[in-house]
């Protein structure tokens, strides 16, 4: 079979069509949600990002996820709880009915504890695999449970882009909001890894963040301009000490925290995040 490899340094803008400069998108941020153990909501995390507080001691290790029905809350996998918690916070802050919002859920690896369970059972007793764990193993399980709980029949999506999952998911959600002229729920999360798989998929602690994005024009809300460009070099502002380990654990955490830090402060800011291995998003955040 012939090999069709292209030297990545040998591609560039020279052959693009006239007028094909990267489009820019303006979106308002109407709602924000966040959860990690010790910072169970956006106001708490915002204070930490502003250097006003540290993580809370004795905090619950699991999100409450009050938007899920009680029965689901008891048995739901952690990624489902985490996504529902942050999504619910963002919708409440935006004062949007979750049933009306199409959604984009992004996660580097999905529910790692279930992947570990599946691989372990399949290696020794495959016929004993739990049917519930199997249908909960799909990457869109959090989106599925969310749409069921929110009675949302709009489009729901579940995406990943490995170490660019936050930026790629944000690009997908902003594209949806602008192209369809609709508010969109965006959630980003990863859960803790476990078992032998953990060496390959280090995520550290569970962390999630969510935004309700809307086409720009919603005055009073912070807004962002998103402009993709080719590139691989970017610099993240250092997170506050209390969040340094969280950011170091997993690129999704680091990228989400850098984005949320820009929203947490009182001044407008510029920020660049990766959306693919050769694609960056230049963002201007206006608060």
């Amino acid at each position: 079979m012939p090999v069709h490899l292209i030297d990545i340094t040998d591609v560039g803008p020279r052959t693009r069509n006239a007028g094909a400069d990267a489009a820019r998108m303006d979106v308002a941020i109407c709602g924000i949600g966040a959860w990690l153990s010790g910072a169970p909501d956006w106001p708490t995390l915002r204070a930490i990002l502003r250097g006003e507080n540290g993580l809370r001691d004795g905090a619950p290790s699991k999100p409450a996820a009050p938007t899920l029905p009680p029965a689901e809350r008891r048995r739901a996998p952690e990624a489902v709880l985490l996504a529902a918690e942050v999504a619910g916070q963002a919708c409440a802050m935006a004062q949007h009915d979750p049933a009306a919002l199409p959604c984009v859920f992004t996660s580097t690896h999905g529910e790692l504890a279930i992947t570990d369970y599946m691989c372990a059972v399949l290696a020794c007793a495959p016929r004993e695999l739990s049917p519930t764990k199997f249908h909960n193993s799909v990457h869109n399980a959090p989106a599925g449970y969310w749409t069921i709980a929110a009675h949302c029949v709009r489009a729901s999506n579940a995406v990943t882009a490995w170490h660019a999952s936050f930026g790629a998911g944000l690009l997908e959600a902003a594209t949806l909001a602008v192209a369809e002229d609709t508010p969109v729920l965006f959630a980003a999360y990863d859960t803790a890894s476990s078992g032998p798989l953990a060496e390959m998929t280090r995520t550290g602690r569970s962390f999630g963040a969510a935004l309700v994005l809307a086409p720009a024009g919603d005055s009073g809300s912070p807004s962002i301009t998103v402009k993709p460009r080719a590139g691989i070099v970017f610099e993240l502002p250092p997170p506050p000490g209390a969040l340094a380990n969280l950011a170091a654990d997993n690129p999704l955490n680091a990228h989400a925290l850098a984005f949320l830090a820009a929203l947490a402060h009182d001044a407008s800011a510029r920020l660049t995040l990766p959306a693919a291995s050769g694609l960056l998003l230049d963002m201007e955040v206006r608060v």
Partner: protein
Amino acid sequence: MPAPIRPLAVTAYTATSALGRGVATHAQALHANRGGLRPNDFSSAPLQCFIGRVDGLEDAPLPQALGDWECRNNRLAWLGLDQDGLLDAVQAAIGRYGADRVALILGTSTASIGASEEAYRRLEDGRFPRDLQRPGIHTPHSLTAFVAAATAIAGPALTISTACSSSAKVFASAERMMRLGLVDAALVGGVDTLCDSVLFGFNALELVSPEPCRPFDALRKGISIGEAAAFALLQRADVAPEAPRLIGYGESSDAHHMSTPHPHGRGARAALDDALARSGLREDQIDYVNLHGTATLKNDEVEAAMLGERFPSRVRASSTKGFTGHTLGAAGGLEAVFALIAIGRGFVPGNLGCTQPESACAQQLALQCEEGEIRVALSNSFGFGGNNACLAFARAEAV
């Protein structure tokens, strides 16, 4: 309802499945009513069932330069990319627009989890064996990261993983990016391979048929699982006046149950409504519907009712899963190619495996291959989590 979209050209497309490699092979098999299912010979302790297995993957290693991505799913992706001049078409698009102006959006349900399963079977002192200590293949983005490396596409690179609607939804995301001018072309598609997770998982849900699957048959007993790779290159219509068109799509959620469809097909109907609105068409203007048709009791019951109620009897419809098995995250892409084959070659694939069709859709169902002009074709894909998509394609001159 959404506004009609500006149609996009599908300037290249290909499929590799249990039916063989490339579009011509698939067209011949579909035309001859010749299926590709076989008794299950996959994995160390095979379940008694039938599968749609791609021949030759075991003898088709990745090129050395791409060796870090070695695994069954990426082998199938590479084999699929090598058919029908797809790689050359992608390189031409990169040359024309620039690598960063081409998007890569692929759907997969399990990606290369088969490699993670193997690592757990071969643990050494509780750790992955050395040859499998490659983080890139133990994550759901493995497929897209591999194809990005293999094609040098440098624009947006996104994996959509919404179970069995994954590689239908990639067309929708690509259209939006192109409409906003973020990119000039998009390589879309899907790849899923046989692995223990899906064979034993669907077995645990009691959804696997002991015989070759029989979509829409009154005596159907469940799914046969298959594997496939399918790809399509999308560009603006003006660059390819003759190429078939993506004219619409619909996406929705059931908001009902994780693994059972809404009893009245609420989400499936919403996706259909959405696709028709974006296409600017009515049901009676559709010539062919490639159905999701998994051969589970519930899916086919709900989809048959929708088909019978919404479409006049002249509209032809079939599930092609009797040919290939249910290729899960690759099904949307594979069956988009089947819709394009129907349009390009002028025939409706038969609904292989069905002899006593569900009465609700008996008038529309094509049990055997039927010759005839197909100007507009739809393709349904429904997944776990109540995740639905419907795609609409047309001949260039029908738009």
